[in-house]
């Protein structure tokens, strides 16, 4: 032993493999795995600082007072006795040592866009949740103030990218309300046809992603397959699969293509039996039911207090559908049922969307029957451009065409709030006009934005594994949340 050591010592300076970065050893860790660990003096470094959202994040328990804790679990929802969560039920004494704050997102396959969720966990149980949003914010409401009313629908259509036609519709309805124009019947019916098809495609997309979140990848493929049929029809009609800019103030951009009845009938005849197949694939399946029944439950009072709308509100048993309650377009002339649930859980939300596909198909079939002849846009040359052929022969037509597409049309001074039922809930548009060709203020009330508020309450007390299922059943579209 003693003889072996001297050679080791002697060889050491030469045998030591040269460090690739000899200088970095002395520096504080700034790269690699050390991003996420605090510096030796306890301050956050690296990615923690660069990605921090500051006070927007979920704070540690020790930094949160009891009132705040109660708020985050929904004890201040002003609910009647027995419905509200008992404030004494909330363990405000728990320390940080017993709980853990973990982060999901902003990029995660199951967050449906760039949504970041922060959970406080006790073991596997979710105590508090906070959605951190804004990663897709591009200032679309500000952009809208820079665009004319004619250009406006190209902007809003990109908000809720799974139901673009609903966005275009709500803006158009708001502009038309300010203009005070009476729409020709055919344009109303064309719009209804398109938004109902869009509702089907959006719900199919939801079925697909919800299936994927719950581990049913077959459902994902099926949902996308059927949605593709509808998108193909949209492409034929509007020229684009998404972001159509087809429903515009004053009507639609064009008439429906020849033979649209056949295309739509084929879609109806395909989707309806396929919906029965989904029923077979998911509804009766024990694993699917166990992952959805009783998960993410909500009461009607809670949903109303949190301003939740759409399938989430209906799943709690409130029969509120703007198409029925405050009809717009010609929804008072078609026959359909409003689907409501009972327990307000994931399974109810699933069944509502599945059955809303069937109801939409029912509406679409009636539209095919009742579609009137006539103009697809209002014949007011100050609002809608003249037909292309007229430009060649009429000086006034050319002037109007030029004015509409350069300056835009002026909208009388005023303000209005218009709401429609999008696949996700109440999609509203608050529009203020100062009499110029551009909106003075355009605010979109995004249903996903508001519905996300329900997440902390729905997830409270559930398992972390169910958080993905709950998030999925809310069906948030982040383009609309962040706008």
């Amino acid at each position, binding site marked *: 032993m003693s003889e072996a050591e001297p050679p080791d010592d002697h060889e050491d300076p030469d045998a030591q493999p040269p460090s690739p970065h000899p200088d970095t050893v002395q520096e504080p860790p700034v790269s690699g795995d050390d991003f996420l660990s605090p510096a030796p003096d306890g301050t956050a470094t690296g990615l923690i600082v660069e990605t921090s959202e500051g006070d*927007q994040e979920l704070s540690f328990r020790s930094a949160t007072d009891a009132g705040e804790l109660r708020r985050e679990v*929904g004890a201040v929802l002003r609910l009647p006795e027995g419905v509200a969560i008992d404030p004494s039920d909330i363990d405000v004494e728990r320390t940080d040592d017993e709980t853990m704050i973990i982060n999901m997102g902003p990029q995660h396959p199951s967050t449906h866009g760039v949504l970041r969720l922060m959970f406080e966990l006790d073991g596997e149980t979710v105590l508090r949740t906070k959605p951190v949003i*804004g990663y897709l914010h591009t200032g679309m409401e500000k952009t809208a103030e820079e665009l004319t009313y004619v250009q406006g629908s190209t902007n809003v259509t990109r908000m809720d990218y799974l139901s673009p036609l609903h966005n275009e519709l709500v803006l158009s309805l708001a502009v038309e*309300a300010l203009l*005070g124009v009476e729409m020709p019947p055919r344009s109303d019916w064309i719009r209804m046809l398109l938004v109902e098809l869009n509702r089907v495609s959006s719900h199919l997309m939801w079925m697909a992603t919800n299936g994927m979140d719950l581990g049913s990848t077959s459902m994902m493929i099926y949902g996308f397959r059927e949605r593709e049929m509808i998108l193909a029809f949209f492409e034929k009609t509007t020229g684009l699969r998404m972001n159509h800019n087809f429903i515009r103030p004053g009507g639609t951009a064009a008439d429906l293509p020849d033979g649209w009845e056949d295309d739509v009938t084929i879609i109806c005849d395909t989707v309806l039996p396929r919906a029965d197949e989904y029923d077979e694939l998911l509804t009766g399946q024990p694993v699917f039911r166990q992952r959805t029944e009783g998960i993410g439950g909500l009461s009607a009072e809670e949903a109303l207090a949190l*301003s939740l709308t759409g399938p989430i509100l209906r799943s709690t048993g409130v029969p509120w559908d703007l198409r029925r309650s405050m009809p717009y377009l010609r929804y008072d002339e078609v026959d359909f049922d409003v689907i409501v649930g009972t327990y307000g859980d994931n399974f109810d939300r699933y069944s509502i969307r599945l059955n809303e596909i069937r109801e939409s198909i029912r509406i679409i079939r009636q539209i095919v029957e009742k579609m009137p002849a006539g103009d697809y846009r209002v014949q007011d040359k100050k609002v809608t451009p003249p037909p292309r052929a007229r430009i060649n022969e009429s000086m006034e037509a050319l002037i109007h065409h030029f004015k509409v597409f350069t300056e835009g049309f002026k909208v009388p001074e005023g303000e209005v709030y218009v709401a429609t039922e999008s696949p996700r809930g109440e999609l509203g548009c608050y529009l203020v006009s100062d009499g110029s060709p551009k909106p003075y203020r355009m*605010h979109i*009330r995004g249903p996903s934005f508001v519905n996300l508020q329900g997440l902390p309450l729905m997830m409270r007390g559930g398992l972390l594994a169910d958080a993905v299922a709950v998030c999925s059943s809310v069906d948030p579209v982040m383009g609309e949340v962040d706008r």
Partner: protein
Amino acid sequence: MHLAHAGPGVSGSGGSSTRTSERNRQEVVFPTRDQYVEVVRGYRDGGFEMCADLCGVDYLTHQGRRLPEGVAPERFEVVVNLLSLSQVKRVRIRLQVPESDAAAPSLFELYPGVEAMEREAYDLLGIVFAGHPDMTRILLPEDWEGHPLRKDYGVGRVPIQFKGAPGPR
């Protein structure tokens, strides 16, 4: 001290009894800041179960807007849309908020659902809601300067704030 009621919801537009304007007829109320919470409480107790929407408007470049008599125009407005499911009715509340004191009482105690909406109005217009439990930015990063939906916040001349941020390497 009185509440000014404007006629149809589409204030300022034609007002002919067409199908469109008939459907968009909504009640608009203009309370003062002192009356604001009590007025909303009155509506809540009167069956308006849901606060459908809350947003802010900056009227900096449109001061001459039409308002009912007795309502002094201010730079900012907070616009609240209440919804009654039982009476199938909407009411819109327009609160004038002066530039010198861009603050309004929070409706959180009445409608917890305004939480995200008031944060959005604060974030984009800089209207502070007193009594809101979590008055932080919601869409923009916490260290963002300015409030983009204000009319004096320019478009396209603000450098991208992430550009100079130090990268991880």
